[in-house]
């Protein structure tokens, strides 16, 4: 499974949606994922790819990790995998 498909699967599970219902330009808010859901998704992503995601829930916009859309999350994960492998 590609990084993109896996990330979408994790986000879809959190949003209680089918993966096909998750669009790349969706924001987490569009998908109904709140801050607790986001933290849980990041945990699932870290577990799935064995990476560490630099994200602090106190200042989500200050992190290097861009969570503004599904596409930006996938791009961020791909970059982290490349850096941390």
């Amino acid at each position: 499974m590609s990084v993109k498909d896996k990330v979408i699967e994790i986000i879809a599970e959190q949003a209680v949606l089918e993966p096909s219902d998750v669009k790349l330009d969706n924001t987490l808010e569009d998908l109904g994922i709140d801050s607790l859901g986001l933290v849980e998704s990041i945990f699932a992503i870290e577990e799935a790819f064995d990476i560490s995601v630099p994200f602090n829930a106190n200042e989500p916009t200050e992190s290097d990790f861009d969570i503004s859309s599904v596409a930006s999350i996938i791009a961020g994960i791909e970059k982290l995998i490349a850096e941390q492998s």
Partner: protein
Amino acid sequence: MKRVVITGAGTINALGQNVTETLAAMREGRCGIGELEMRDVDRLAVKIGAQVKGFEGEHIFNRQQMALFDRFTQFTLVAAREAMAQSGLSFSGELSAKSGVVLGNSGGGMQTLDENYRTVYEDGKNRVHPFVVPKLMNNAAASHVSMEFNLKGPSFTVASACASSNHAMAQAFQMVRSGTAPVMITGGAESMLCFGGVKAWEGLRVMSKDACRPFSANRNGMVQGEGAGVFVFEEMEHARKRGAEILAEVIGFAMSSDAADIVMPSKQGAARAISGALQDAGVNRDEVGYINAHGTGTAANDKTECSAVADVFGPHADRLMISSTKSMHGHLIGGTGAVELLACIMAVRDGVIAPTIGYEEPDPECALDVVPNEARDADVDVALSNAFAFGGLNAVLALRRI
């Protein structure tokens, strides 16, 4: 002062997954203690407990709830739903703003602690699930009850080891009696039957390896249980106006502290709590027909408790009944007083006294009517529920038939 009545009850414990099943088991004198089923049970010296079997939280709660609910929270919500359904109450407006939830609990999310300590210490992982803290905190259950039923008044968790639930229910009682809250949800829960939980208790060497036999001369210790008991305490006029079914009246309580020893019980501390509850309730000692004992089945507790009862009640001690239902549902630690209150409700409402099962040999130091092995029909006006915790913290509640 307002009068306080119980208009809802719910439970899950080793004897049953609701009040009806639990009271039926108490009437039959059924034992909920059995072989422990858990990981690494072969490394435990104590292999028995009163586990809730055939309960799968996954069948009741969704995935997101399960990510946040430790087993003690699951037990609490199951019991709270039953109690709320029986009460017929729903909370909005001023009723919601003033009503709250006070629950007793000792260990918090022990299953969550145990699993995640394994993850980081045994498995060597450096990452834990993000909800470990909100899942294990002792107030998680009270908070989830407040959210599920829209309770926006005074809400918190009380921890006083084996007296937690009685202290919690005493707080709830005071709030309704004083007029602070029209309704309080109260009781307690515990889920300590995990490897670390049992191993910790083993260390103290007060656990029986075969059975819980309170007051019996051959008793050899306590047996742990798990589960929850939750009640709706409601101001009597509020309950009457809406035609609610009233299970019993809560008429008094007392708390005391031994200020003596961290584990050994004190006759004086227990006696002060019992006599204090009678005084608070405004009842004479000869009105008490039944006491649900703390009755842990340890050598020290049972003789101290009997001696305290004899001191407080004088000649009437030989006429009242005192039983320990821990012989059936085990010791639920912070949740135990809540499940035991059910036996008091059964005594005053149904006229059935739950027995002390496993009773084999009379002990001259426990020479009271302990209702050995078989339930008994009796006409009881007033019942007491004793709880005497490690740390010397005691709380006794008094109920009356309505």
